[in-house]
């Protein structure tokens, strides 16, 4: 049993909350009591046993590994993430005609789907005879019809349009299925929840791949292009550049997480994010305190303090011509669009969407700078970092630490070293910097 202050009791219980019998209680300090317990947490415990003071060494070790749990049994009693809801997955695979570890046959699997759908139809039909409200009937009817349409599933080559078809099809199915996740709100449960999410993604992906074998093995990442895509073979430099730009939006990267996170995560987002918020509570508190202090300053003062180069303050001449008192009063004027964009991070539910938000915010910064300065600007981190830090401070994202942790846990590894990776790291660095940089006393 774990409590909020990280005390841990290991031993015999009577009922759920009553401790009764032999056990060991380990306190957050590392001190422990071993003996006979009786009573409950709320009403007081009667203990007959031995108190052991922890040696200092252990304590420092514990402080470092804050998340570690003193009990060796912890987590071993529960079902490992990969085994949870196994029955459901087995059932699913059986319907799709896969027995045990046998190799899946796509056509057979679709037959299985067809059988299930027609069974569902019969049930519906029976329901109709029982006079259900027409609205409900209509909804169900159109739903089954949509599912009945079997999309092409064996093209041999994955393209953007095809990928979007798959996504649409899955979307319909997913509106049916509901998955459960560990709920409850002890920060200790976070690791379990994350393991579970990753396991679901892995297993659902395997199941979906039976139906759409063209999806990349092992969950990608695989770069795909639109059907309309034409190879840039031209040796002519300018031609190539133009073609590249026009096809850029049609290029996509397929991966298990990219495909399934948007379906899965919104359903479980609130409890999952609560876990992250709890886990990062202390850090976020410290960060929030700083953010509020920093936000008391006007735009100019804040940018000057954060070390933003004066040419990026982007204030019109008109500001300077006014009295200097008004200069210090300017507030929430600079980089507003980028700030608003970044604030949307809290309404994105999957790591990739959140990363997209960060990227959009950077894009806005660049656009703002380019329109104001009227030239193409090549960023270097020396200049960009302070500006982004300014944007982060002004966006006042309440649980930034939880956001960062969420993305870090669930983002797919292939994204890490790319453009999104460096932007994410910069956001993380800002979070760290805001927490730890000394604030000057005015």
């Amino acid at each position: 049993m774990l409590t909020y202050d990280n005390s841990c009791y290991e031993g015999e219980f009577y009922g759920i909350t009553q401790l009764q019998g032999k056990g060991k209680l380990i306190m957050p300090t590392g001190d422990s009591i071993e003996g006979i317990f009786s009573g409950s947490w709320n009403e007081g415990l009667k203990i007959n046993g031995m108190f052991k003071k922890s040696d200092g060494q252990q304590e420092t070790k514990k402080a470092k590994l804050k998340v570690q749990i003193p009990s060796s049994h912890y987590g071993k009693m529960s079902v490992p993430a990969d085994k949870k809801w196994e029955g459901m997955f087995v059932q699913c695979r059986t319907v799709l005609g896969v027995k045990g570890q046998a190799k899946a046959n796509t056509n057979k699997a679709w037959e299985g789907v067809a059988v299930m759908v027609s069974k569902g139809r019969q049930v519906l039909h029976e329901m109709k005879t029982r006079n259900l409200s027409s609205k409900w009937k209509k909804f169900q009817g159109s739903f089954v019809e949509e599912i009945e349409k079997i999309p092409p599933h064996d093209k041999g080559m994955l393209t953007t349009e095809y990928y979007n078809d798959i996504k649409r099809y899955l979307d319909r199915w997913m509106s049916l299925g509901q998955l459960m996740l560990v709920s409850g709100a002890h920060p200790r449960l976070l690791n379990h929840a994350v393991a579970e999410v990753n396991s679901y993604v892995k297993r659902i992906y395997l199941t979906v791949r039976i139906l759409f074998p063209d999806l990349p093995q092992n969950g990608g990442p695989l770069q795909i292009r639109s059907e309309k895509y034409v190879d840039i073979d031209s040796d002519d430099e300018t031609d190539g550049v133009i073609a590249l730009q026009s096809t850029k939006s049609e290029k996509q990267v397929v991966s298990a997480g990219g495909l399934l996170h948007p379906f899965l995560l919104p359903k479980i987002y609130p409890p999952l994010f609560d876990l992250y918020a709890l886990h990062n509570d202390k850090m976020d508190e410290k960060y929030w305190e700083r953010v509020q202090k920093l936000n008391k300053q006007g735009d100019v003062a804040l940018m000057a303090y954060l070390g933003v180069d004066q040419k990026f303050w982007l204030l019109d001449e008109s500001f300077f011509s006014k009295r200097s008192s008004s200069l210090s009063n300017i507030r929430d004027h600079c980089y507003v669009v980028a700030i608003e964009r970044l604030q949307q991070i809290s309404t994105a539910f999957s790591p990739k969407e959140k990363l997209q938000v960060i990227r959009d915010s950077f894009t806005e910064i660049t656009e703002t700078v380019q329109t104001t300065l009227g030239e193409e600007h090549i960023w270097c981190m020396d200049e960009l970092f302070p500006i982004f830090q300014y944007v982060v401070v002004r966006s006042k994202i309440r649980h930034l630490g939880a956001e960062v942790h969420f993305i870090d846990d669930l983002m797919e590894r292939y994204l890490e070293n790319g453009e999104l990776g460096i932007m994410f790291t910069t956001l993380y660095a800002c979070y760290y910097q805001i927490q730890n940089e000394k604030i000057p006393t005015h």
Partner: protein
Amino acid sequence: MNGNLLPVIKVKVVVVGDAGVGKTSLAVRFTDNSFIQHYKQTVGGNEFCSRALDFKDKTVVFNIWDTAGQERFRSLVPMYLRDAGIALAVYDISSHNKQYCTILFRNPLRILSWLLQLQQYGPRDLKCALIGNKIDLDDDLREVPTQEGQLLAEGHGLYFEETSAKSGDRIDKVFNDIGIALVERCKKEKRSSTVSICDSYVHRKKKTCC
């Protein structure tokens, strides 16, 4: 897909050094100067640079991460070093740029502190290189003799080169040398945590390179 397709090694290259020594110019010069199609991302400005180079039997994709060099951001460097395969510690050989850290300038301890930070916080198999930048400037502006950089690099067992990001001098050589070393290293140890070998292929034009 066209051209000859080689297995791809992706490696993250982190560029560190004081503000104003030319970290970004170096990265931009390398990625802009490419013979083959690089996919420098234009989204969100040019802060992300990446370029592929072909070697004997591998293509190496260098993902270059620029960092902020100001003293106050020093504690953030370890975050950027995560999963990095290569780090370039850049310093300014001249006294040209007086704007930044004039007092600390010409102090060998400056670059040494960067090297120590790389060793302390970088991944275990991080390969570091020491780069003296701005050799395009007149000789009388030079403050750090070549030998000094060389000695420092030898003392730490590092790759050393002097470059000019402005003229592009020897930038490609640096990445060529690093790439060759990297390919060799990958042969020796088939698995490496910081260098990912993947099945994907870089899409490129039919232009011959190097």
